[in-house]
């Protein structure tokens, strides 16, 4: 079976996000004054083989812990679905 894991890695609260700031300013310049906050993050879409969805989830979580996110500054969320 194939699964697709979608991972979002964002900065922890309190960690300065210069990119988000720059984009917010740019949006203001483009006259999107209503924007109050922009937070940036990384997105990964991982196609993997696994026997069950649970296994796929376990593996994706491990990948997040070990490689995709740096726990000092980042946190992650993910979801896994069947892929066809």
């Amino acid at each position: 079976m194939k699964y697709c894991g979608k991972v979002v890695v964002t900065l922890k609260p309190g960690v300065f996000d210069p990119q988000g700031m720059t984009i917010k300013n740019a949006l203001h310049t483009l006259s999107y004054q209503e924007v109050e906050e922009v937070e940036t993050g990384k997105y990964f879409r991982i196609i993997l083989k696994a026997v069950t969805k649970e296994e796929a989830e376990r593996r994706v979580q491990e990948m997040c812990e070990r490689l995709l996110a740096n726990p000092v500054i980042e946190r992650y969320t993910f979801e896994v679905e069947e892929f066809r």
Partner: protein
Amino acid sequence: MRFGVVVFPGSNCDYDCFYALRDVLGQDVVFLWHKNTDLQGCDCIILPGGFSYGDYLRTGAIARFSPIMEAVRDFVLQGGLVLGICNGFQILLESGLLPGALLPNRNGRFICRYVYLRVENANTPFTCLCTPGEILRIPIAHYQGNFFLPQDELGILTERGQVVFRYCGPQGEVSEAYNPNGSVGNVAGIASSDFRVMGMMPHPERACEEILGSVDGRKIFLSIVAWLEEKRYAGCGS
């Protein structure tokens, strides 16, 4: 006494370090390929600057899994000296050999320029030839040099003297005006609690020759040499 400069795919200051050590300072130095685990009897390992694995994902995130990093970890446990410069600093943080993380620069851009550093602790293997508070002029060149550590942890680090360099003005003023990238407390370089591992964003290898505009970087490499010599002379670690 021998230096080893680790070559990761994407390192690009490896040769600059090698050149500074061998051709300028006359030291014995070898390259260490990241896939090997034999440290070839080196007394000090240098993780050079550059873009290991293109900095794809995060700076240093992939390089820290290179086989040589296992050996470096053991080497540290045995009291060996490790200096991480720029990307090397980032790798040390990702490996957990030093605390904290490096975020993108506050202005969101790469910055290449000379900065001033104040030596906060002159009692480390990497700064023992400096005087406390001495000011060094050394270039930075990075996109992610904005050092981050939660405030309480920074307090502890400072207390223990692990903050080795801070960005400052030409007279040693440590202030926001002289903080190029937004690092907490203007931190430019830190050491481990046993002072055997140091990471710094500025590039001492770029400041070893008069013709390049500064020789202040020599102090760092020569401190290592002096410290190792003394240790050898004393016959044991200090």
